[in-house]
């Protein structure tokens, strides 16, 4: 009985030590991957912020445009008719 216990314990120690090393390597690998992913997310957030800044500037410019300067004139008469969806999805036609 003691002959088997000592080798068993020795094997257990070796297995635990190996497991510990494997877990450490996995942790480091995971941490590296997580750091890269977080860095990528933050870079993307910054790029999104820059895009949104451009978006606001573009919308500001478009909103400030006067239709008259683009050649549009005030309509002389406006009429409204009910729409009818008798075409493919997304299209609707007035009347008919």
């Amino acid at each position: 009985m003691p002959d088997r216990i000592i080798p068993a314990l020795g094997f257990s120690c070796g297995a635990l030590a190996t497991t510990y090393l494997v877990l450490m390597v996995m942790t480091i690998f995971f941490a590296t991957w997580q750091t890269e992913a977080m860095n990528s997310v933050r870079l993307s957030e910054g790029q999104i912020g820059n895009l949104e800044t451009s978006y606001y500037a573009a919308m500001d410019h478009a909103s400030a445009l006067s239709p008259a300067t683009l050649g549009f004139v005030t309509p002389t008469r406006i009429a409204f008719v009910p729409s009818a969806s008798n075409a493919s999805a997304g299209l609707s036609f007035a009347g008919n």
Partner: protein
Amino acid sequence: MRRSFRFRLRILGGVILCVVIFLIGRLFFIQILHGSTYAAKANRQYVSSSQELYDRGTIYFTLKDGTLVSAATIATGYLIAIDPEEIKSPEEVYTELSSQIPLDSAAFFTAAAKVEDPYEVLVHHVSYATGQAISALHIPGVIVEIERWRLYPAGTEAAQTLGFLAYNSENQYTGQAGLEESYNTVLERNSSGFIGNFFAELFANLNTTAVHPQNSEEGNVITSIEPLVEQRLDQDLKAVNDEYKSTETGGIILNPKTGAIIALDTYPTFNPNDLANSNPQYFGNPLVQHEYEFGSIQKSLTMSSGLDSGAITPDETYNDTGCIHPNGAKVCNFDLVARGITPMIQILDQSLNVGAAFIATQMGHATQRKYDTALGLGEKTGIDLPGEITGKLQNLNTNQDVNYDTASFGQGIAVTPIEMIRALAANANQGAIVTPHVATAIQYADGTTKQIAYPAPIQVFKPATAAIVTHMLVTVFPCDARIAMAADPSLLMPIVNVAAKTGTAQIVNPQGGYYSNIFFHSFWGYFPANDPQFAILLYTNRPQGVEYASGTLTAPFMDLTNFLVNYYQLPPTSTPTPVPAFCD
């Protein structure tokens, strides 16, 4: 022998078991509880950094289709610094750096001359691409560090509502105004504390070991502000303020049924991306922190109070003498003209102060005070913005008839714009006031979104009363609109029925009484009148060259109305309101 051997084996087994538990626990603490701290440390291995990297939650605007657009976010880039001791040729370094980024030569050479200082910052907020390019040059003595900072992509839009970040008295970089302050605990990101003693952490702080309470509150703030509507409002406010050289022009667009604010701003304002060059005078939010005597837009509430209390009826008439003399004071119509026997509706159509005073007299002091209090005037609205003040209604705590008469047309009492719109919106919401608010939800890191609950609407008027007053206000708008369209043919009459009222109030003279030629203009309206979706309050303080609010604020109100009708595709009203005869 055998028994002692077994005993030693058990001890050895126990020791191994303890070591296993220790290692597993250590892995748990390193990877799970302190993972973010190690990640932040590892992040700095990309380039060196001598300070904590900044992080904070995002504040979102919401487009009409529900898409979230950042109003306050975090930008990532670099800061460029130098170690003067390592720089052998400052001229060469300046030439190389200035080819990548704009550099002030005097500032650079002054910094480069400080050879005893190992760290001199040259430029902050350098773009990621430029920072990478400079880093790739490997210039000796040049330090390139990752930097993150707060970015407000919308610039000056809703700046006073969003707020800004600054150091407080405890040297903490926190929200100092607006939503940044109100929701600071949600937006701030605390780096987790690093406790070296595993056993101290395990046994001393068991309740915080598994879940840090602060982390569970962290999230992003979603607002109801629609960025394109906000932009349109800002353009109109600036145009009015510039044209009439006012001291301040402001506006609020609100959903009268829910209290959700779609747009709000004042002009002048500031750019939160450039605080150093902004005027601190404009850092506060006048919409919740300033009070004004709003003038005749109060008449719509006086009419509602009179009808709701039964003091007057819609078909009643009164004798308009042009001026009255309560308590020896003189209260007159704007034009001093007596109109004789006048129907109730004309009090709003022609904005008659004598008529409003008549309603106040019919109601009595207690009833008038009761309704003004029920409408929330003189108390905080509960809006989720810091620094809200209450209006001044002290005149309604006296027994002087003149105080109640003047209060009936919005003079002698002062309220904040947010108080005013909440009260006025009662007529747009079947007689119930709502809690105005900016934030609608919190978006947490785990992906869940929690809707923020606000108090239920409070019924002040009967729905029938609100409907009667709305019908009256609908007849007011076409007259003002026609005048504005005559001055600016590009203006179009909105295709929906609009309930509206203007207000022109005299401004208090600090030396007593009121100025005779300095005014506060206001414009209040909501539409579509049969089922209001939008309520707009505009004001401009001390405009020059125009006496009445109809001359300054009708045009921007119509512009905003037409914009909202088109943008939200509101269907046209089947029967447009005719222009009243008195407009001719």
